[in-house]
């Protein structure tokens, strides 16, 4: 692909380099690295600006056009842009997101992979109280302490929503600022918390010790992985990214995350291996 004649004018027309950003979240960084390597293989020059905090930090930069490609999650981003967004199915959410984005930004194709919020309990806890979906939490006879990033407490799907939509009364909130990472899992296992918000693509689910509670009332919006891009991304670049998204399935993301957390591999190695395997580079 490096000999693609289209690549040259494309990259020079839109400026010399494409800036790819990522959240300060390892999984997001892996996806950003995949985008970057794919783009580089397509003849583009990439400037990586990874690990740049949470949405509130980088969103202004994307809106200002300082970042050209950013891996995002449809539902999460939609809620960040429009607190009252209704959501719905994966495709509905994607459409609403397209509408909610400012004029200078757009999203390319969404991937099959999603990494969405969830209410999760330990398998033991689920068995003990016979839990399957969120509504069944009503069976729990002990106080339920909730854990997750501190913003969870006020999010539309947070403890308040639990009460309003499912009538579940929680006993308290404990912040663990690791984005549903190992410490949150440890807190669940230690019984410091009973209910946690863990991203569905977390490798923690591989162990089978955790159970995601089903969400029939669509408390959580579907959050498929999607690149948010600026005008600088031309058709050639977009085509590359869309190919990546097409290959990025639900299971893939969990595997990639597992390589990072369990095998302690760095994002670039994980990305190269996957892209090579998928024959994308």
């Amino acid at each position, binding site marked *: 692909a490096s000999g693609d004649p289209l690549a040259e004018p494309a990259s020079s027309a839109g400026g010399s380099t494409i800036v790819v950003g990522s959240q*300060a979240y390892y999984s997001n960084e892996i996806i950003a690295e995949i985008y970057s390597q794919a783009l580089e293989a397509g003849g583009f020059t990439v400037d990586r600006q990874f690990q740049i905090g949470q949405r509130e930090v980088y969103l202004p930069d994307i809106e200002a056009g300082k970042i050209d490609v950013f891996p995002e999650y449809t539902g999460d981003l939609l809620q960040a842009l429009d607190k009252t967004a209704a959501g719905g199915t994966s495709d509905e959410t994607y459409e609403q997101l397209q509408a909610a984005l400012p004029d200078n930004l757009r999203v390319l194709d969404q991937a099959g992979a999603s990494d969405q919020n969830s209410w999760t309990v330990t398998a033991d806890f689920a068995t003990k109280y016979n839990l399957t979906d969120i509504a069944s939490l009503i069976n729990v006879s002990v106080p339920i302490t909730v854990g997750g990033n501190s913003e969870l407490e006020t999010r539309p799907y947070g403890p308040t929503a639990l009460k309003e939509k499912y009538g579940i009364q929680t006993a308290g909130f404990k912040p663990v600022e690791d984005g549903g990472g190992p410490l949150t899992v440890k807190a669940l296992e230690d019984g410091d918390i009973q209910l946690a918000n863990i991203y569905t693509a977390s490798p923690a689910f591989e162990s089978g010790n955790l159970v995601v509670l089903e969400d029939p009332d669509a408390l959580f919006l579907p959050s498929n992985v999607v690149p948010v891009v600026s005008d600088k991304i031309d058709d050639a670049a977009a085509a590359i990214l869309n190919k990546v998204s097409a290959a990025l399935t639900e299971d893939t993301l969990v595997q990639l995350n597992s390589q990072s957390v369990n095998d*302690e591999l*760095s994002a670039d190695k994980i990305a190269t291996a996957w892209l090579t395997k998928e024959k994308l580079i």
Partner: protein
Amino acid sequence: MTWIWSNLDLIWDRTFDHLILSVPSIILSFVIALPFGALAHRYRTSRAVILTTVGLLYAIPSLPLFIVLPFIVGTSIRSPLNLIIALTLYGVALMVRVVADGLGSVDRDVQQSATAVGFSGWTSFWQVELPLAGPVLLAGLRVVAVSTVSLATVGAVIGAQSLGSLFTDGFQRGIQAEIIAGTLATVLLALVLDAILVLIGRLLMPWTRRSAIGVRVRPDTVAQEVTA
């Protein structure tokens, strides 16, 4: 620990990012603190005002400062400049007091004799007071250096790349080796900068090195050692 060996380049990159944040801050703190410290040293009223102000400055928790600063100075929140400004503020807060104390520690006899033999105020400041305050300034600067390096890691929480990024990343991925590597690298970096400052001090202040024949107490030794 294998993580460390397979990610040396990452650690090195973050160390470099860290240097970009901390070294300019340390230098700027010193340069900016000089005039304010001198002012605080010279006049009683300005002393109270300046020292109280820097005292308050130091009470501001770093995290909100990192976030609020862009609104005040107009930099982007994750730009290194933002962090450098914040770190410089803390450095200045620390250093101003040191400069005032350092100038105050200069032997009055020496100062007076300099005036008596005909040093003008300005010349005396640069050629007598400042060099003689040197050992105290150095001691203070070493503290500033160490604390700036340490403080810069907090920037990772708001997305400014530094060795602190190894903490947040390692924390999420549950890789202890990554956090340990970040911590060790930070301590090491601090100690290296500290050693460099000591070396610079040796070069610039040769007179403090020579041991006295007479049993003259050098006012600086205690301060120097204590803050080592």
